[in-house]
């Protein structure tokens, strides 16, 4: 695409982004000082070492965008950085031995962000390789099932071995699937939404076009059965349904999909122990046989939430370590205990901002592919937050989804930062076309 570059000597200033990043920097420093001081009972300069590295990383990303004369959105990066800062503070608080590992992952995530800004030269070209993405995604999805490379941790078989560690391929699958869905739906939305045959108020598209819905349902169920990962199942299918609805505007598909998910869930509940255990724990965690068994984690989390009250126990002052595996599964409860309802609402407001901004980017995007891509990417973050926070608060059954940007975990942090970069790229395309900021 031909575009006249207006000659700006140094780069293109991003004042909004910079001013927001200053607050993020302050947030990181204060959080670390509070947590470290509470633990060691003294103020030490060493406390600001990790936040300083983080601030340097974020500022260098900012400078990188300026140097590239990048014209994309200025809000999303600071929001993601703020959440990552809260995440680092919480890792220091809940599992300080994992802090250096998480900091390294944060740096890798920053690199992945920069690479995603640089590498796909033309975003729309991603649509042309849609079947490649689909194939790769399915391959990664089933990879943990193979005996040598797959690995089962905490009852879920969703990991593959890489060198000494293991990564969660599902995280990368999220992005691949959204790109594929966006490209597929852009091509076939006409057929799917303007079918001439109707059954009452519902469209009846030609059978071949129904295949993807059924195939998606099958794959989602497969994940539930063999990898024992209910969270991924809900996310995977949820993203697909949301994008299908966005592309076609037919509530029928969403309802059909939900019905399929409910039927699948019910059958799985009847047949599989791990699904049954999740649901039982959710419905009656305080029962005698569950209270100190599978329900222990959830019950401790609920006590932590209750203990938080309106303004919390104060950072570093609560007892979140009484929740097992709190740093990866229950960070929301831990944060709510120490900062109270006030902190919990602020945290959710971060995600609200992210979703709102992402949807605006989708609305402004010039082509259906880019619109669906931006909407799907924002929706991943929203749905993930909903599923894990709902699980932590016992509104829905608990699943092993990570709280985006905040929970401990490398694969998730890296892919979420790539997701932010993709959203920025979409907003850049619209800004260039519309002559906006």
């Amino acid at each position, binding site marked *: 695409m031909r575009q006249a570059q207006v000659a700006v000597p140094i780069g293109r200033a991003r004042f909004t982004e910079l001013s927001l990043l200053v607050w993020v920097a302050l947030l990181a420093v204060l959080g670390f000082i509070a947590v470290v001081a509470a633990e060691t009972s003294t103020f030490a300069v060493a406390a600001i070492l990790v936040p300083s590295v983080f601030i340097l990383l974020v500022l260098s990303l900012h400078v990188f965008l300026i140097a590239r004369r990048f014209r994309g959105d200025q809000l999303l990066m600071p929001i993601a950085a703020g959440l990552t800062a809260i995440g680092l503070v919480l890792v220091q608080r809940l599992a300080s031995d994992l802090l250096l590992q998480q900091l390294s992952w944060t740096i890798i995530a920053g690199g992945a962000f920069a690479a995603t800004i640089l590498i796909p030269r033309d975003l729309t070209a991603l649509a042309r390789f849609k079947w490649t993405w689909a194939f790769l995604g399915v391959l990664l999805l089933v990879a943990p099932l193979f005996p040598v490379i797959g690995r089962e941790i905490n009852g879920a078989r969703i990991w593959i071995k890489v060198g000494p560690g293991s990564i969660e391929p599902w995280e990368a699958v999220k992005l691949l699937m959204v790109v594929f869905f966006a490209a597929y739906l852009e091509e076939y939305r006409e057929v799917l939404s303007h079918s001439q045959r109707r059954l009452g108020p519902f469209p009846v598209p030609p059978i071949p076009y129904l295949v993807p819905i059924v195939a998606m349902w099958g794959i989602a169920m497969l994940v539930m059965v063999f990898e024992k990962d209910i969270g991924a199942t809900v996310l995977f299918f949820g993203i697909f349904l949301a994008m299908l609805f966005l592309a076609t505007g037919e509530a029928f598909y969403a309802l059909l999909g939900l019905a399929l998910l409910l039927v699948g869930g019910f059958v799985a509940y009847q047949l599989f122990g791990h699904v049954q255990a999740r649901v039982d724990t959710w419905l009656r965690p305080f029962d005698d046989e569950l209270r100190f068994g599978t329900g222990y984690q959830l019950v401790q989390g609920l006590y932590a939430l209750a203990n938080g009250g309106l303004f919390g126990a*104060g950072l570093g002052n609560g007892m979140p370590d009484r929740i097992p595996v709190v740093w990866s599964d229950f960070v929301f409860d831990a944060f709510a205990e120490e900062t109270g309802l006030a902190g919990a609402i602020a945290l959710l407001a971060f995600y609200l901002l992210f979703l709102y901004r992402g949807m605006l980017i989708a609305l*402004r995007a010039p082509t259906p592919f880019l619109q669906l891509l931006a909407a799907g990417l924002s929706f991943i973050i929203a749905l993930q937050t909903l599923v894990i926070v709902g699980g932590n608060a016992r509104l829905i059954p608990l699943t092993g989804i990570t709280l985006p940007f905040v929970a401990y975990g490398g694969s998730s942090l890296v892919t979420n930062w790539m997701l932010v970069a993709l959203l920025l790229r979409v907003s850049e395309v619209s800004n260039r076309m519309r002559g906006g900021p």
Partner: protein
Amino acid sequence: MEITFAVLLWGVRIAFMVVLYLFLIRAFGALQRSLASETQLAARPLGIAFLVVQKSVRGAPRVGDRLPLRAVNAIGRDAGNDVVVNDEAASARHALVEFADGEWWVEDAGSTNGTLVNGATVRSRERLQYGDELGIGRVALRLEQ
């Protein structure tokens, strides 16, 4: 009051919460401002140029109608487009016509039946001259000043 370690620590904790909310207030403010400028952009006067209907079908704009253009125009069957072409052969979001670098450009937005310029299918992004005829579905539109 004596400033003890505990008081200082609570000071830091409260400062953390305050900064958390200040960030959110700033971010919502920035969102608000960008929405406002967006609205301004959309409210720019119409009529830098016109698409004059040459050929049409029932329900679509009538032959001879002068459809005003903005700087950036989405053309398609959906009511949300800047130029609505209500023809079954047109896609919901069919094409984009925009004024950039002092010239008019047309780009197909992934339409089912394609976009034509003077009878030739638009491949990627093509320049439009005044007098060129744009084909969207069964409707023909001529770019005029």
